[in-house]
């Protein structure tokens, strides 16, 4: 059995990627499971999805704790979450990274195999938007097999209809352009680690639970007013940021009213100001602006 964890951002299609791959594996006659990390849907937030593929029936309904393979759809996640958490020694990391970002791989190279592809560029060039889920599947097939590009056609056609051709092209190109970096030396059988749980059950509970039961506020209250302010939803931003054309802006406040995170605010002199800490890059402000004064553009990390 192969266990795979996908890291993406809400809306990038990590769940869909796992699902498509599972459908293909099932078409191949294998057994597979695809499932999200069940929880609130949050566009732009870091999310995980899971995939199991096996030649035998799968009798497990648990999250994947120690994956054989990790797939990363969004390069900015590397700085936000430990994508290699629990990854088996010598396991495979499939990364979407531009050529310029490959320095980030150094910390993984001596423990894991790495397959790398610039899936964002491929997605923009084939599909027209930086949604990388279908491209990264091409890399995963290159790195791990699991299924064939051919088998992927059926599930992709059912899922994407007239957009399937573009997505299949992204899949094909990523397969061709993926570079599998030299693997660390495989451990000899004598050195093979004894199969053991990654931590004790008590340690597992400490990871699962925020607080000891008697340290919770009565009734699970939150006693710090405005604590949501500390929750920087701007971390979730992946699809560009709003730019305001001050010559067109009439300070009507539509963007302020419609913004789900109060990231568009009035300054003291009545102008509209953008707050990068909370903007998820959803683009509702640009959509609602009656003067077309707001446009969504790509941002660089320096901003």
């Amino acid at each position, binding site marked *: 059995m192969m266990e795979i964890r996908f890291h993406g951002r809400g809306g990038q299609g990590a769940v869909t990627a796992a699902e498509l791959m599972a459908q293909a594996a099932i078409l191949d006659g294998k057994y597979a499971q695809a499932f999200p990390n069940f929880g609130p849907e949050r566009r732009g937030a870091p999310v995980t999805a899971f995939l199991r593929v096996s030649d035998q029936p799968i009798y497990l309904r648990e999250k994947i704790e120690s994956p054989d393979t990790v797939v990363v759809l969004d390069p900015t996640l590397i700085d936000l979450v430990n994508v290699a958490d629990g990854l088996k020694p010598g396991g495979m990391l499939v990364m979407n990274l531009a050529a310029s970002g490959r320095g980030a791989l150094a910390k993984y190279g001596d423990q894991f195999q790495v397959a790398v592809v610039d899936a964002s560029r491929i997605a923009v060039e084939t599909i027209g938007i930086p949604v990388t889920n279908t491209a990264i599947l091409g890399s995963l097939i290159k790195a791990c097999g699991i299924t064939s590009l051919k088998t992927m056609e059926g599930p992709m056609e059912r899922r994407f209809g007239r957009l399937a051709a573009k997505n299949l092209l992204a899949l094909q190109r990523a397969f061709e352009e993926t570079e599998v970096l030299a693997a660390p030396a495989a451990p000899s059988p004598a050195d093979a680690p004894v199969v053991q749980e990654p931590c004790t059950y008590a340690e597992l509970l400490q990871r699962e639970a925020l*607080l000891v039961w008697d340290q*919770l506020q009565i009734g699970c*209250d939150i006693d710090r*007013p405005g604590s949501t302010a500390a929750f920087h939803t701007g971390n979730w931003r992946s699809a560009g940021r709003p730019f305001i054309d001050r010559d067109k802006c009439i300070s009507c406040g539509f963007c302020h009213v419609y913004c789900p995170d109060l990231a568009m605010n009035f300054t003291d002199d009545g102008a509209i100001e953008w707050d990068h800490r909370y903007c998820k890059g959803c683009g509702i402000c640009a959509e609602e602006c009656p003067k077309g004064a707001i446009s969504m553009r790509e941002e660089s990390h320096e901003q």
Partner: protein
Amino acid sequence: MSNRVGIEVSIAVAEAVGLCDVDVVAAYPITPQTHIVEHLADLVAEGKLNAEYIAVESEHSAISAVMGASATGGRAFTATASQGLALMHEILFAVSSLRLPVVMAVANRAVSAPINIWADLSDVMPQRDTGWVQLFAENGQEAYDLMVQAFRLAEDHRVLLPVMVNLDGFTLSHMIEPITMMERNEVRRFLPPIEPARLLDPDHPRSIGPFGAQDVYTEAKMQQEMALLRSQEVMEEIWQDFEAQFGRRYHAVESYRTGDAEVVLVTMGAVSETARAAVDEMRAQGIAVGLVRIRMWRPLPQEELRQALEGAKVVAVLDRMLTPGGTGGPVGEALRSIFYDAPVRPRIYEVVAGLGGREINRRTFKEIVRQALAGQEQVRQFTFLDVRCA
């Protein structure tokens, strides 16, 4: 100075709530609870009780309104029965989980269908697992006293949980009987003004009832469970204080003539008085029979029940609710569970009877004891005692 009067139990219950200086009453009338909230509405309208009476459009709104009132620091009361309690079901969990000290009287009544307004426990038993403290009154005096004790228990900072006081519909709620009434100053001495542990206050903002994912939910339930278990010892303390001030003593479990009893009846609610009379008559005939009454049903006083029943050969349980498709009724199940691991286990003879107000009288208890002592066989671990089969 005794103030003993003949009064309808519902009216007395309302008077007790009035003496507790409640701030908010929100209720929707439903038989057989109506007299309780009607009288409270009268007290407010006549200026005898300085409270906000909210006439809501349903029981779902009634419990929601008192939950909100309690969150803002008020002492809040509601009452209901039957379908009304069922309609509250969803909110009952929220009140206990948010640790709000609401008090509610339930005039126990069957649930539909067929439509039936008379007493049994099939309204309250499905609420067993909502996390409320659940007390059952045997007579008018007890229903009256329990109301005052309930507020003190609910508001105790070691507890902070809602309390449900159950009284059988009609056979208790609508009886005229002698009740020794309390004076307002006496009640104030026993029940201090509410001191909310925390409250919704714009000057000190906090969130009550936020989202709680997998990483806190279990711990929140544990905290709630520990408070519910703790409520039993706090209740004992309150009952001691109550006895010191008013001279009436209460226990979580009451035993009657069980010392040498071969068979012990187990009952809840107002039928227990009839059961006691039946025990006396059977004792006069030489039958070694006793009675155990459960006053506190949640938290379940497991140790007290085990001690009260361990000497018996047969425990004869009357459940006034059928658990459809199950093993009888909730009390029988609980007792089997308590004794499963005990070194000496009494036989448990379980009877479901008295549904929808079907008469429970001394003959009923004598028949239960006769069957229990005869070792009559039970199918699916219970006997549907009073169903007409031929």
